C-alpha cells in the first residue's frame, strides 16, 4: 500500500534547542496513527512542520507519494491536511455555522448565511452531532465548542486529519461520537494522526503508535500487540512500576472537613461530604455535573443558598474567597491559564500571590521571605524554571500547573480543593503531582479532587463520591463496601446504583 504520510529524516533546531533529531515515520491510509511522547518530546513541532507552520532544517515530507514543501498552513489544507488544534481556534462571537465555514465565502467574496447554515446542518447530521448551527459559539459549553472545532476540520473534507488532544475537553459521550467519526474516516481510507495524554484512548482509537522522546524517534509499535507499560516505558525510557502512589494508610482517622446540605438551587443540591484526615476524596462525574460550581461555593467564590462547613468539628463561616483562604481552604481551579495564574507575571510573583497577607508588614511585602518561600516551593515541587524572575508563560504546561498548585500551598491550606489538577500535562509531571497530593494528605491536609480522567480518580483517590446533575448519587470506598472501579464510577456518574460487594467473605472467595 502507498503510504499517506511519509516523514523522512526531519531535523529542526530552534535557537539553542534541537527540537527534532532525524525523525522518520510512515502512516498508511485507513489507519489511526498515534504520536506519543511527553510534553517537549517534539510532537507539536512535528505537527507544525507537517501543516506548514514551520519549515524543517533538513529532511523530506511525502504526502500520498508526492514530495511536498508547504510554506503556509493554507498549502497544507489544499493538499488535504486538516488539523484540530489543542487551543481553540474558534471566533467566540460568530455562529457555529460561520465558524465551520470560516473563510469560505462564495465566488464573489460575499457570504451566503443561508447556504452556510444548510451546509453546517448537513455536515453535523452526516457525523451525527447534535448542534445548533445558528448558536453563538461562545454560548456553547466547552465540549460542544470542541466538537465545532472538529466539524470545522471535517468540513474541509481532508484526506489526513490531525487531532491534537481533541478529547481533553470532551465528555465521554462526545468522545464516543468522535470515536465513531474516526471509524468512519478509517473506513473511507483516510488517515488520522492522533495525540492524547489518555492512555485508554490511545488504545481505543489507535492502530499504530510512534513514540518520540527528546526530539528523537524511539519506535513505532502496533497497538494491538502492546500494552500501557510498553508505551510508557518507551516514552520515559524506564519502567514505571506504578504510576500512582500508595493509598491512605491511616484507617478510621477523625473527620477533618465536612460540608453539609450545600445547595445553590441551580448547579448543586443538598451536597453532604466528609473528608477524614489523610484522605484524598474524589468526585466521580462526567463534565458539567456541577462539580466546578460546588468547588467554587466551598472555596467562597460563589454564593450558596444553604449549607454549613465544619473544619475539625467546628463550624466556620465565610462569604468570600479571602476569608475562606484565611480559614485554611485553598482552591486550585480547572483553568490554569485563565483562572489559576497570571501568565505574564513571574514565577516568584505567582507563587506568592495567594499568600501575600502572610508576607507583609504595614502593606509592604517582605521580599526576602517571599523569595525564600518561593525558592522552597520551586524545589519542593521540582518546578523547572531558569529563575523566579522567569514569566510563567514561558514554562511548560506541567510546570505551569505546579506553580498553580504551589501558590495555593504557600498559603498552607488545611483543606485543598483541586479541579482537574493534571489536565493537559505530561505523564512525568502528572506522577509528581500524584505523589505531592499523597504526601500532603499524609501530612494531614484534607483533599477533595475532581479529574475527568477516570483512571486517575481510581488510582489516586481513597474514596469517591459520584455526582450526577448536582446530586451525589453514590459513595465508593472500602468503608462503603463498594469498590472504586471504572464501572462503579460510570454507574454513579450516570445516575445508576453502584454495585456493592455483598460482604468480606465474597471478596475473599474471589
Amino acid at each position: 500500500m502507498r503510504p499517506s504520510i511519509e516523514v523522512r529524516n526531519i531535523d529542526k533546531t530552534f535557537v539553542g534547542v534541537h527540537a527534532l533529531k532525524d525523525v522518520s515515520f510512515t502512516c498508511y491510509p485507513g489507519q489511526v496513527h498515534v504520536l506519543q511522547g511527553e510534553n517537549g518530546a517534539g510532537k507539536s513541532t512535528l505537527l507544525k512542520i507537517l501543516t506548514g507552520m514551520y519549515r524543517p532544517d533538513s529532511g523530506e515530507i511525502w504526502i500520498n507519494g508526492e514530495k511536498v514543501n508547504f510554506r503556509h498552513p493554507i498549502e497544507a489544507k489544499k493538499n488535504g491536511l486538516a488539523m484540530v488544534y489543542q487551543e481553540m481556534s474558534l471566533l467566540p462571537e460568530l455562529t457555529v455555522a460561520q465558524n465551520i465555514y470560516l473563510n469560505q465565502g462564495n465566488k464573489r467574496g460575499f457570504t451566503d448565511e443561508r447556504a452556510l447554515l444548510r451546509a453546517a446542518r448537513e455536515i453535523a447530521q452526516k457525523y451525527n452531532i447534535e448542534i445548533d448551527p445558528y448558536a453563538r459559539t461562545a454560548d456553547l459549553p466547552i465540549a460542544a465548542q470542541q466538537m465545532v472545532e472538529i466539524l470545522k476540520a471535517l468540513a474541509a473534507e481532508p484526506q489526513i486529519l490531525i487531532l491534537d488532544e481533541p478529547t481533553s475537553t470532551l465528555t465521554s459521550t462526545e468522545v464516543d461520537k468522535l470515536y465513531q467519526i474516526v471509524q468512519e474516516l478509517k473506513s473511507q481510507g483516510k488517515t488520522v494522526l492522533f495525540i492524547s495524554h489518555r492512555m485508554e484512548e490511545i488504545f481505543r482509537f489507535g492502530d499504530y503508535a510512534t513514540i518520540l522522546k527528546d526530539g528523537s524517534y524511539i519506535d513505532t509499535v502496533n497497538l494491538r500487540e502492546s500494552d500501557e507499560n510498553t508505551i510508557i516505558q518507551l516514552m520515559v525510557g524506564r519502567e514505571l512500576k506504578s504510576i500512582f502512589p500508595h493509598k491512605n494508610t491511616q484507617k478510621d482517622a477523625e473527620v477533618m472537613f465536612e460540608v453539609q446540605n450545600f445547595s445553590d438551587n441551580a448547579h448543586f443540591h443538598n451536597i453532604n461530604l466528609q473528608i477524614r484526615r489523610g484522605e484524598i476524596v474524589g468526585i466521580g462525574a462526567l463534565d458539567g455535573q456541577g462539580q466546578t460550581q460546588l468547588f467554587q461555593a466551598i472555596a467562597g467564590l460563589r454564593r450558596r443558598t444553604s449549607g454549613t462547613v465544619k473544619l475539625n468539628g467546628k463550624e466556620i463561616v465565610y462569604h468570600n474567597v479571602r476569608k475562606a483562604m484565611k480559614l485554611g481552604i485553598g482552591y486550585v481551579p480547572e483553568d490554569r491559564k485563565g483562572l489559576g495564574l497570571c501568565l505574564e507575571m513571574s514565577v516568584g510573583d505567582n507563587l506568592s500571590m495567594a499568600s501575600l497577607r502572610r508576607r507583609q508588614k504595614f502593606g509592604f511585602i517582605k521580599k526576602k521571605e517571599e523569595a525564600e518561600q518561593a525558592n522552597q516551593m520551586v524545589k519542593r515541587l521540582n518546578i523547572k524554571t531558569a529563575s523566579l524572575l522567569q514569566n510563567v508563560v514561558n514554562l511548560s504546561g506541567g510546570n505551569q500547573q505546579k506553580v498553580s498548585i504551589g501558590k495555593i500551598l504557600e498559603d498552607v491550606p488545611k483543606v485543598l480543593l483541586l479541579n482537574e489538577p493534571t489536565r493537559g500535562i505530561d505523564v512525568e509531571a502528572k506522577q509528581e503531582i500524584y505523589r505531592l497530593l499523597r504526601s500532603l494528605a499524609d501530612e494531614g491536609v484534607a483533599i477533595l479532587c475532581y479529574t475527568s480522567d477516570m483512571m486517575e480518580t481510581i488510582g489516586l483517590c481513597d474514596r469517591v463520591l459520584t455526582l450526577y446533575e448536582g446530586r451525589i448519587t453514590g459513595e465508593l470506598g472500602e468503608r462503603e463496601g463498594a469498590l472504586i472501579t471504572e464501572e462503579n464510577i460510570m454507574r454513579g456518574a450516570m445516575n445508576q446504583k453502584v454495585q456493592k460487594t455483598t460482604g468480606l467473605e465474597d471478596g475473599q472467595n474471589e
Partner: protein
Amino acid sequence: MEKEQDLRQLKLQKILPVVFVYAVMILLAVIINCVSTGFLTVDHIYSILKQAAFLGIVCVGQSLVILTGGIDLSLEYTLLFSNVLAAAIISGQNENTFTALAAVIGVAVLIGLLNGCGVYFLKIPAMIMTLSTGTAVYGLAYIYCNGAPGGFTSDILNQLSNGRFGGIFSGVTIVWIILAAAVIVILRSTVLGRSIYAIGTNRDSADYSGIQVRNVTLIVYIIASVMAAITGYFLLGYTGTSYMSTGSGYNMDSIAAVVIGGTSIAGGSGGYVGTIAGVCIMVLINSLLTILHMPEAVKQIVQGLLIAVLLLVVSGRKKER
C-alpha cells in the same frame, strides 16, 4: 554557570525597555541642544522639570489606572474643576490656600469613587465610564463659574508653583519628586502594587488568589482623580488665574507619556520609572517644536506624528521578545 547567564539575561530583558526610553529621552535632549545651544543649562533644565511636573503628577494616577487594565479619561476635567474651584475659594487670600487644597482633594475623591464604582460594580468599560464622568464634571465646572472662572491665586500658592526651593527646584517639582518616589515604592514593594499588576495581568486569577480587586480598583481611580486635582491646584499658582481651557490635552498627553514610558496599554506590565522618561519626552518634543517656531497647527501635526512613531517603536520592541 549557564543558569547565572540565563538569570542575567532575564534581568536585562526586564529593564531593557526602561533603559531604551531613557536613551530616547537623552538623545532628544542632545538633539535640541544642537538646534538651540544653551538648551541644556541648569536653568533651563529647571524650567523643563517644572513643566514636566504638572504632566508627571497626572501620570502618577494615569499609570496606576492603566496598569490595572483601565484608563481614565476624566482626568483633564477633574483638573479643570479643581483649578476653577481653587481659584474661586482662594480669591487671592493667603489664608484660604490650604482650605482650597482640602476642598479640591475632597471633590476629587468623590469623582474617583464614582469612576471606580462604575468600573467595578456596574462593569462599565473604563473608557466610557470615565469619559461620562469627565463630561459631567466639565459641565459642573461650567455651571459653577458660569463659563467665566473668577478668583485668582494667592501669593503662597504662586510661590509654591513658581518659586525656587533649595536654589533649584520649584515647589511643584518637589511635590512631583515625592509623589514619584512614593508611587515607585508602592508599585515595587507593597501589596497594593503587586495587586495592581495582578489585576492588570489577569483579573480573574487575581480574584481567585484572594486579592482585593474591589478595594484596589476603587483606590486606584481615587488616586488618579486626586493627582489630577493637585495638578489643577498647582496650575492655578503657575498661571495666576483660572481658564476654562485649563487642562485641555492632559488626557491624551498622560496616556501617551505612560505608554511611551513602556507601560502596556492593556495593563499588567511597566512602571513609573519609565513613565518619568515618557513625561520628559513629551515636554521635550513640545520644547523642540516651540524652538523651531512652528505655527501652532503645524506643531500639533508634527507632535502627533512624533508620538505615533515613538509608540510604534516601543510596542514594536515588545513583539521582538
